[in-house]
Each structure stands twice: as structure tokens, then as C-alpha cells.
């Protein structure tokens, strides 16, 4: 059997950002009809490599050949013309245009007086039928679900006659069922002769969808394997560079409630409320995980417990006392440790020093100020302690925070919030974008705090994270929360159905839960 022709050849790609080598002479080949999984931790260089391939970045060294022709560097237009299509992690669709307009935009000359929408629609529907990518061409993108948007993005690439499709972390925003349907689509595409590269840091997807897997670590290609000839343990070790063992939560008896929401509604100003009559209780020594596809009220819930927004109706209580109108500062004072969803935008002031960020929630404390003057010596000394206790890798308390890696930023936030023995911990997407080592550190700290008597509310789009940590799981859908389901009594398939809004299965789960 002759191997299928090579469609893409990357040779010796090197890319530096200042002192950081994001890609270190990476060479890869992609064959017709192949699905290549690019596996690696965050920061391993996967996205950089694909951005070079697609012309967003220019490589410092190395060359790319597509279908036997050299690909001019730094030009997305040339990449598109060569038949390379990319679906970004963050979709690049305009919400206020229809699917059809989004897909056709940029494919016609601006000088043409009118566009041929009818022909575009025929082509689009034909593609959609061929590859099982069901879309409504005239629907506004803003009204689509995340899964539909992703299908529109894939169709956009196919519409431009892509023969090589790059998908950057395509499943990050999908339910397990939607992911399965995506993998179906990929199989149909490769059967038609396309080649696919998909970027992932999730092991199960690699086995579900790929033919070949390339593992990146620290900017280097450490191994390429036939997916059928490797296993999870080997890939995990290649990815991390050492063997890892997951944290194992010991069962604990939950204590009294620390956070109680009853009938909390938060209006959105238009249409469906952000939170709709939510009931939730988090007890001491208990981790409650909120699963759900993003955009189903998790952000509003996090802002509510952070003190940034307040319920329009219903009540929120901390340790039995009303806290519905508490400000962020008051929430901190009352023992809530808050880990924000977006550590760059909401957690830290990147332009300020590490010590300044560490005292940000308690700079009024007499330990850090006297008569309005900052006690810089005391603040620095405190910062040194936290840096040591939470293993923050940084040059010192005076380092500018934005120079820290994502994992160290998260440790900084953990240090700021957990160092004071909180009663309740709100952890929003606590490990998003972190490498495997940092993830297990964060999980370990959360489990430690639980053992020390804190109640923990974990909001995560990563179902594996919820399953690894939570004692009880609730699913967010359209601003509502299911009752807390005990971990172990609910299967991944059931969670997936709940995440997609099939709450009619709830009685069967809750029924099973009744002893």
C-alpha cells in the first residue's frame, strides 16, 4: 500500500518571542485524508505553530510547503489561496450578520455592485449536506448556539475550498454530545480527501478523533505517534515530561451551609434573565461543581458571589446572614475567597508590582497602611511570605505582574485569597489555560482548603475538572441550575444531556439518588 500524498510539510519552524522560544525547529508532515492531533500543554507552542502556518505570525526560521508549493510566510490570504482554512478558538464571526453573509464575506471583490447571494446559498447548502453540517443560512449568528457557530466557522473554511483544515481547541466550548458530532464531521471530511489538524490538550479527544498524534512540549516536537499504537500513559508522560498522579479527594462529612442562594434572579436588561430563580447551597468541607456550556449564567453567578452584582429578587446568605447587597470589599471581609474567571482582566493589575497585587483586597488593613500611607516594608515582607508559601515563581515582590506566567499569576491569586483561611471559596475556571503541573497544584490547594473547613464553589467548563474535584455537581442551563447531584450518581452522558438542556431526564437521576 502506498501512503497518501503529502499535503503539508513544515520544516524546521522556529519562532522566538524575545527570550522565549515558542517553536523550536519543528518539522511535521500531513497526508491527504489524515487527522493529526497536535497535543500539548498550554504554552507548548501549538497555537503559535498553527498561527505561523496560517500566516498570522512569521517564523524566524524554517519553511512551509503546501501541496508541493512553498507557502509565502506572513500572509493569511496566501494560506487561504493554498487551501488552508483555520477555525479559531475564539470564533471570528460577526454577530449582526446572517450565517450566509458571514461565510460569503471576503470571498467577493468589493468592487462588484451586488453579490450573488442565491449562488452562495446553493453552494453553502450543498456543502452543509455533504458533510452533515446542519446550519440555517439566514439565521443571525448572534442567535446561534456555540455548536452552530462552530459549524458555520467550519463551513466558512470549506466554502473557500479549504483542503487542509486547522481547528484550534475545537471542543473547548462544546458539550460531550456536540464534540462527538464534530468528530463525525471530521471523519466525513477526511473521507472526502481533506486533511485536518486539530489542537487539543485533552487526551480522550486524541483517541476519539485522530490518526496521528504529535506531542509538543516547551516549543519542541517531542514525539509523533500513530494514535492506534500509543496509550494515554505514554502521551501524558510525553506531554508533561514526567508521570503525574491525579489528586484523590478523600470523602468528608459536609458541615453547615456557608453559601445559600434561594430563588435568586438576575435580570439581563433584555430577554432571558442571566440567572433564573436559582437555588444553591454550599456547605463547609464540600466542593460543589457547576458544569455547563459557557454562557449559561456561570459568569453572572460568579459575579454575584464576588459581590459585583446583586440579586434582583431572591436572597443570598453567607453563613446564614444576608449578603445580597454586599460589595466586593465586604465579601472579602466576610470570608469569601474569590478566584476570578479571567485572571488577566479581572484578577490582577498587570502593570503593577507583585506586592501591590497581593495587598489589593486588604490594603486598608492597618498592617499595610497607616494614616493613608502605605507601609511598603510590611507589604513587601508579607508578599515575600505569600510568594514562598504558594510557590510563586517570580524575581521578587517588585516584579511586574504581567511578566509572570499564567500558572504563577494563578498562584498569586490563590495566595492573595487563600492565605486568610476563607469560609467560602469561589473558583471560576480556576485552571483555564494552565499547564498540567499548575492544574494539579491548584486542585491540591482547593482540596486542602476543603479539608480545612471551607466550602468551595467551582465553576468550570472543563467537565473533567468538575469530575475530579466535586462532591456534588449541578448543571447550568439558560440561567437555571439543576439540584446538586451527588458525584458518582450521575454519568458523563447524563451530564452532557443536562448541559444541552434535556432536563426531562432529571427525575430519573434524582430518583436514583433517593436512598
Amino acid at each position, binding site marked *: 500500500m502506498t501512503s497518501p500524498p503529502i499535503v503539508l510539510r513544515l520544516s524546521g519552524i522556529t519562532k522566538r*518571542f*524575545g*527570550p*522565549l522560544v515558542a517553536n523550536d525547529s519543528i518539522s511535521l508532515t500531513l497526508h491527504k485524508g489524515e487527522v493529526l492531533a497536535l497535543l500539548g500543554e498550554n504554552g507548548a507552542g501549538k497555537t503559535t505553530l498553527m498561527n505561523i502556518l496560517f500566516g498570522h505570525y*512569521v517564523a524566524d526560521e524554517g519553511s512551509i510547503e503546501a501541496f508541493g508549493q512553498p507557502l509565502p*510566510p*506572513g500572509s493569511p490570504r496566501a494560506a487561504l489561496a493554498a487551501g488552508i482554512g483555520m477555525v479559531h478558538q475564539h470564533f471570528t464571526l460577526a454577530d449582526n450578520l446572517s450565517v450566509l453573509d458571514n461565510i460569503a464575506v471576503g470571498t467577493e471583490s468589493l468592487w462588484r455592485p451586488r453579490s450573488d447571494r442565491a449562488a452562495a446559498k446553493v453552494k453553502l447548502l450543498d456543502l452543509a449536506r455533504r458533510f452533515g453540517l446542519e446550519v440555517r443560512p439566514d439565521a443571525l449568528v448572534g442567535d446561534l448556539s456555540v455548536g452552530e457557530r462552530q459549524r458555520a466557522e467550519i463551513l466558512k473554511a470549506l466554502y473557500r475550498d479549504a483542503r487542509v483544515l486547522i481547528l484550534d481547541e475545537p471542543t473547548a466550548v462544546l458539550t460531550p454530545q456536540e464534540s462527538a458530532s464534530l468528530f463525525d464531521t471530521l471523519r466525513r471530511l477526511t473521507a472526502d480527501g481533506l486533511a485536518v489538524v486539530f489542537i487539543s490538550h485533552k487526551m480522550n479527544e486524541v483517541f476519539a478523533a485522530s490518526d496521528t498524534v504529535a506531542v509538543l512540549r516547551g516549543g519542541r516536537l517531542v514525539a509523533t505517534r500513530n494514535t492506534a499504537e500509543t496509550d494515554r500513559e505514554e502521551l501524558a508522560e510525553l506531554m508533561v515530561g514526567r508521570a503525574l498522579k491525579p489528586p484523590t479527594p478523600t470523602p468528608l462529612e459536609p458541615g453547615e451551609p456557608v453559601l445559600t442562594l434561594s430563588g435568586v434572579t438576575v435580570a439581563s436588561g433584555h430577554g432571558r434573565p442571566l440567572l433564573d430563580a436559582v437555588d444553591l447551597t454550599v456547605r463547609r468541607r464540600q466542593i460543589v461543581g457547576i458544569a455547563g456550556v459557557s454562557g449559561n449564567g456561570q459568569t453572572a453567578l460568579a459575579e454575584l458571589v*464576588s*459581590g*459585583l452584582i446583586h440579586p434582583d429578587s431572591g436572597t443570598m446568605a453567607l453563613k446564614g446572614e444576608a449578603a445580597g447587597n454586599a*460589595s*466586593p*470589599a*465586604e*465579601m*472579602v471581609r466576610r470570608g469569601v475567597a*474569590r478566584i*476570578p474567571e479571567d485572571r488577566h*482582566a*479581572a*484578577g*490582577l*493589575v*498587570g*502593570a*503593577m508590582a507583585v506586592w*501591590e497585587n497581593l495587598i*489589593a*483586597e486588604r*490594603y*486598608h488593613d492597618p498592617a499595610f*497602611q497607616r494614616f*493613608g*500611607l*502605605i507601609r*511598603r516594608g510590611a507589604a513587601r515582607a508579607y508578599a515575600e511570605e505569600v510568594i514562598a508559601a504558594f510557590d510563586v515563581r517570580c524575581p521578587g515582590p517588585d516584579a511586574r505582574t504581567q*511578566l509572570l506566567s499564567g500558572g504563577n499569576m494563578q498562584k498569586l491569586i490563590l495566595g492573595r485569597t487563600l492565605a486568610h483561611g476563607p469560609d467560602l471559596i469561589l473558583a471560576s475556571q480556576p485552571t483555564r489555560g494552565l499547564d498540567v503541573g499548575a492544574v494539579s497544584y491548584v486542585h491540591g490547594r482547593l482540596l486542602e482548603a476543603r479539608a480545612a473547613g471551607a466550602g468551595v464553589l467551582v465553576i468550570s467548563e472543563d467537565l473533567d475538572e468538575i469530575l475530579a474535584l466535586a462532591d456534588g455537581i449541578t448543571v447550568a442551563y439558560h440561567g437555571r441550575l439543576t439540584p446538586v447531584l451527588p458525584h458518582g450518581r450521575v454519568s458523563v452522558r447524563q451530564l452532557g444531556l443536562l448541559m444541552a438542556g434535556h432536563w426531562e431526564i432529571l427525575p430519573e437521576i434524582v430518583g436514583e439518588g433517593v436512598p
Partner: protein
Amino acid sequence: MRLEPREHTPLAARLLAPVAAVAAALALCALLVAWTGAPVLRAYGLLLEGAAGSRFALTETLTRATPLILTGLAAAVAFRAKLWNIGAEGQLYMGALVAVVLGGGMLDLPAWLLLPTVMIAGAAAGGATLLGPAVLKVRFGVDEVVTTLLLNFIVLLLVSMLLEGALKDPMGMGWPQSAPVVEAAELPKLVERTRLHTGLLVALGLSALLWLIDTRTIWGYENRAVGANPRAAAFAGMPVTRVMLRTALLSGGLAGLAGVIEVCGLKGYLTLDLSPGFGYSGIVVAMLAQLHPVGVVGAAVFIAGIFVGADAMSRAMPVPNYIADVLVATSLLCMLVAGLLTRYRLRRG
């Protein structure tokens, strides 16, 4: 060519950026000077001599720098909090208006009490002028660039109306000018037989004070956090709205004080040409200083020197003194480019 962000900006680059920007501006404007037919080097030589070549020239430059330090601080303080105050010109006139009203004989107080009273009242008037746009910004998201800019014209028309009416000096030979302030409201001279007055010390003191507040107090800490990342500041529990309003009062107050000091230290009365655009030049000063309160002093002296030196130069050779405006504007543009280059590096390809 493309821009890539730098992970780290060396201190030397930050310090050299304004120097390089000014050098580039001088080089660009040399083309204009050459166009008038004048010898470029001699023109710049005369400019330097006119700005710093004698005791008189130096005191004139410092006199001119005094209001620029204050409007520069006004812009720097506001811009650091991302409050785009383009209305320092109007706030300056509000301060000047209060100075001639209170200092024009309405209050009968000894000098040691009258001067501070007039200064505080003038600063309050300037602060109040910016408070309105700031409240509109934090409450309703109204763009303060538009409101503060348009308020300048409203204030100028108000001053014009008052100078033609209620505040018109009966002894002013029909000119639209106010009555002079009383002697007790005049700032003492700093150097005898020059125009340099103690307003300079006030400006220098405030520059140092603002720097201390910025680095040593929880006020300054809050200001910097809110300016750099308001979302993170709010999340951590800082009073973002209060910080914005406080910043507005401070920025408007500094500009108002510039008006008071121009009236009480230099002019003695209010006319419509009290400020040749100090409010707008303050923006250039702040940008050249990279919004640093101490840097503002150096930038203000530089800009003042350009204006004063260009006047002297234009008297000696056929180069119009408008070249000063062009130089200052070009410096601002070059500084914006230089600032960009300290944060990003240019890459080919």
C-alpha cells in the same frame, strides 16, 4: 513591517523616548525653517538663546512654564486614570474667573489668607467644571472627550459675556477685561525686575506632592490600579467610581489653579487671551512626560522654552513664531510614535 509587543521596556528606553521624539521633531521642522529661506542652524541657535541664553530669557521661560506645569499635571493625573480630560482650557478660565471675582475686592482679607482662599476657590471651580463630565461618564457612559472639549467653548463664551457685562472694568477704556485683583491677591515676585513669580514654587510643590501621593499613599495606589485595570480594581473591592470622581476633581482643580496663578501672578486681570492654549499644550506636556508628575516639570520647561525662544527668533529673522506651534505639535506626534516603540518592537516581514 509589523509590531510585536516587548516583554520588557528598559528604563533607558523610557527616558530616551522623549529626547528622541524632540530630536525628530526638530529635524522635521528644520524643513519648514529651511523653506522660509532662513539658515536652519542659526534659527535653532537663536531659538535656544531666546529660551535660555540670558537671565531674562530663563525667567521668561520659567514664567511661561508655570501654568504649563499645572495644566500638564492636570492632563497627566486624568490620563493616568483613563479620564480623557480635554477641557483644561475651560477649567483654567473658570479658575481665573473665580480669582478676579474673589480677588477683585469682594473679599477683604490679609494677603496670607486671601491668596490661599482664592487658590482653593479657583481650584474648586475648575474641579467642579470637570466633575460634570466625569459624573456623566461614570453614570451614563457619556464620552468625556466630547463633553470636556465642548465645555471649553461654553466657558469661553461665558467669560466673554461677563467681560462685556458684569465684570467689565469701568476703568478699562472699553476693552473687554476685568478689573484687576487687589494687591493682597497678587503672588509675590520670585526674582526682582522680572515677571517670574512664586506661582512657580506652587507648581513645583504640587508636582512633588502628586508624585508622593502616587507612590506612597493608598490614594495613589487606588488611582494607579483603577487607571491600569478598572475591572481588576473593582473586583478587588476598590471604589472605582469614587476614584474617578476624585481624579476629576484633582485634574480640574489643577487646571483651575493654573488660571488663578496666571491672574494673580502675572496678568493681574482677566482677558479673553489670558491663556494661549495652556490647557491644550498641557496635553502635550503630559504626553512628553509619559504622565509622570515629576517629568511634567521638565516637559513644561521644554515646551515653554520653544514658545519663548520662537518669539525671540522670529524677531531676529523672517521665520514666523508659528513655528513654535508646529514644533510642539510635531513633538507630540513623534512622542506618540516613540511611546509606541518603547512598548513594541518593529519587525521586518
